[in-house]
């Protein structure tokens, strides 16, 4: 049975961060990926995502996200040149298709599609990192201060997800043994799976009702509850300031149009639009992360100070 790609506590500096700070770090990466279009910055963002994945020791856990991201990225790479015909360097002259026009494939649309695909892959990896390395209980505690009902719904959903996956897997196996033919064409499979889906969702509703009963038995929703605060440690301000500074720089560059890159009509010079200080700052930040991760394991003194 494959382990589900969900949060499990590990002894790493990233897991040791306050959930709000860990979320800020992830958010800063997301801002970098979504606001800057320059391929060099995106490569640096990729290095940043990977260094955090290594720092949090979740390379294996984020495998499913990586696979899904690669699949989606491949789709983007294949589809984009077919629907985006801008660009001056035509690589392949295609036929004329009604509605879509002439299906010429240009170098620029191919590069643009590849960079967009890479971006999508990075976003998937960031979500993978967030779901496997940030404690949902910690995040829900923060959410509960804002809205306890939303926090409750999210808690039950998070709690039910692994149960649902396991039950769906077991249900499929049991029905196979009973003689249900679940193989075959897509239509046949869909028809065969329909009764189980209904039973699965009914089971989930029953389970949610049981969880609600258990919560009620433990006094949930019966007055003002105490919200335990996760204490901040010395490492938290360090990561928090770094991340917020990163977000500020990225937003500023985006506003000033510094992180842009022209893909059309022709690819512009990759060195144009690059800010040396920004590249150096990003490289420095990710190098810091790598050093912290390395020293966390090897220097107990530093670890105790953080």
């Amino acid at each position: 049975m494959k382990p589900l790609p969900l949060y499990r506590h590990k002894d790493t500096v990233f897991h040791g961060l306050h959930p709000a700070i860990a979320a800020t770090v992830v958010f800063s990466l997301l801002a970098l990926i979504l606001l800057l279009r320059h391929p060099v910055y995106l490569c640096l963002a990729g290095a940043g995502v990977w260094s955090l994945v290594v720092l949090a020791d979740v390379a294996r856990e984020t495998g499913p996200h990586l696979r899904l991201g690669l699949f989606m990225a491949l789709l983007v790479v294949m589809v984009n040149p077919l629907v985006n015909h801008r660009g001056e360097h035509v690589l392949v002259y295609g036929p004329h298709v009604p509605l879509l026009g002439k299906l010429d494939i240009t170098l620029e649309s191919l590069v643009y599609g590849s960079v967009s695909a890479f971006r999508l892959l990075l976003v998937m990896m960031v979500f993978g990192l967030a779901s496997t390395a940030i404690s949902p209980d910690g995040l829900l505690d923060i959410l509960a201060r804002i809205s306890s009902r939303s926090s409750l719904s999210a808690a039950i959903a998070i709690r039910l997800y692994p149960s649902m996956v396991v039950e769906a897997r077991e249900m499929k196996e049991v029905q196979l043994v009973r003689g249900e033919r679940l193989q075959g064409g897509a239509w046949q499979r869909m028809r065969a799976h329909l009764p189980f889906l209904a039973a699965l969702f009914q089971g989930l509703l029953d389970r949610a009702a049981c969880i609600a009963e258990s919560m009620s038995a433990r006094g949930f929703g019966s007055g003002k509850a105490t919200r335990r605060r996760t204490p901040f440690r010395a490492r938290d301000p360090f990561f928090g300031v770094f991340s917020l500074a990163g977000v500020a720089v990225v937003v500023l560059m985006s506003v000033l149009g510094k992180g842009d890159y022209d893909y059309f009509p022709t690819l512009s010079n990759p060195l144009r639009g690059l800010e040396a200080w920004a590249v150096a700052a990003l490289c420095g930040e990710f190098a810091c992360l790598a050093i912290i991760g390395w020293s966390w394991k090897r220097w107990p003194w530093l670890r105790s100070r953080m």
Partner: protein
Amino acid sequence: MALVEIENVSYWYPRQEKPAIRDINLEIEEGEFVLLTGPTGCGKTTLMRLTNGLIPHFHGGRIRGRVRICGMEAPAATTRQLSRCVCMVFQNPEEQLVSTTVEKEVSFGLENAGLPETLIRKRVEEMMAGMGISRLRRSFIPELSAGEAQKVLLAAVLALHPRILVLDEPTSQLDPLSAEELLTVVRRVHEESGTTVIMSEHRLERCFHHATRVVHMERGEVVFDGTPAEAANWWGGRRSFLPPVSRMFACAGWKKIPLTVNEARRLLPDAGSACLRRWESCREVVAGDDGREVVAAARSLWHVYPAGIEALRGVDLRLEKGERMVVMGENGAGKSTLLRCLLGLLPPTRGKVCLFGLMPSEERLPGLASRLAYCPQNPNTYLVSPTVREELMRTMRLRGCQVAGAEATVREQLDAFGLGEMAERNPRDLSCGEKERLVLACALLPPVPELVILDEPTRGMDYPGKERVLEVLRGHGSEGCTVLAVTHDVEFAAALADRASILGGGMAVASGRAEEILGGSLFFSPQVNRLLDGFFPGVIREEEGIAILRRMREERGADAE
């Protein structure tokens, strides 16, 4: 002062015409250990929900009569007030855990109670240390074993320092060791802090001796209320509800009925040696038939999960036609993995598996539907039809049986498993024990398959239900049906098995005749064996025990009276 006062209470669930409990009168004093017994669906859970305010606060419905808990009128008290003095642990830990980590789960109730943060931290630490779950502090809850999860829940409710602890079949999902551990904690809490315990349980051998009072329910009414000793005598005509050791003495006609193995052994000493020789000479030894067809086999079977967990490490198993074999072992020992490998649902990492002479695989499974039946641990994964009757019809269809006469067959099967009245109900609305019975009814529909594989078939099942299942399985066994059962229920295993195997750490640590494997053990032996071990080694079945006790009673005459 009575902590729980229930006066003339009847209760109807929403949209139900028939009351779930009727005219209940019950007073429970501080410090009592009350054991609630009765057949499945008799109203035990409803009564327990009443004692902690879930009825009417959570379930709604209509209530008549008066319920006072810790001096508060239950319908008027808030759930916060009630949850501070009475806490409940339900049957299935999977359906009660709210958080994703253990520490958070333990603090959940304390946070809801609005206690100061420093007190919450202190109580969480205290409970985790006391229950021995500190090492699990940050464990991912869906990955805990059933025993660990139930311990976490117990810690979570005990952290609230309740005056009343209500437990609804808390050990039904646990292996014998985990069940013993959990009950030891409950007893310790009861003895050391004077907490009142109200517990319902079908496996009475586990808890009968802990109780100070027994309340027996039938059809929504309390029909007996007294001490365990009085209960043992009162149950003369309802022997199904006695723990095995008491039942054997009752069936053998002894006047004094012991409640524990210890008490029972004190009645035996001199009689043992006197009739041992006669017993040995008349005992029937069934020789193995070496030439029988092999239905399923595993040779040096290994299975390693992608996370690197070695679930099976070189397991050998051979199941011959007509044999009834049980596999036991603690939670996580690899029992369910073994079944899945045998069925072809998991490929062996190393070694060989053979089912009906072929290597099993997912593709081959649908073709084996008429020869093979499988009852999974979780009946919800089996039951997908809208009604009980349709579930059986679906089984017939999947096995390729003739439609003509199917209705009659289904009706007969429903009656045989005591499900006749539930034919038009949704399987999901049945109790856990009833669902298990329905799954077995589907699996054992005639023509009975050649191989029946059962994963925890008696979960949540009462004694009469178990007896019915045993009767059916034994009957089919004599017709050549092979049975492989994975179970934690030692008494059921002993009553069913010809052969047994104990798994530990993914290895078959002991395999052989059931008498050898299930005899002479502290936790994996039935009560009859623990009673007669030393006098009559290898006796594991109640019928044999009753025969011996009857003979001893005849020999001792008036002494036994």
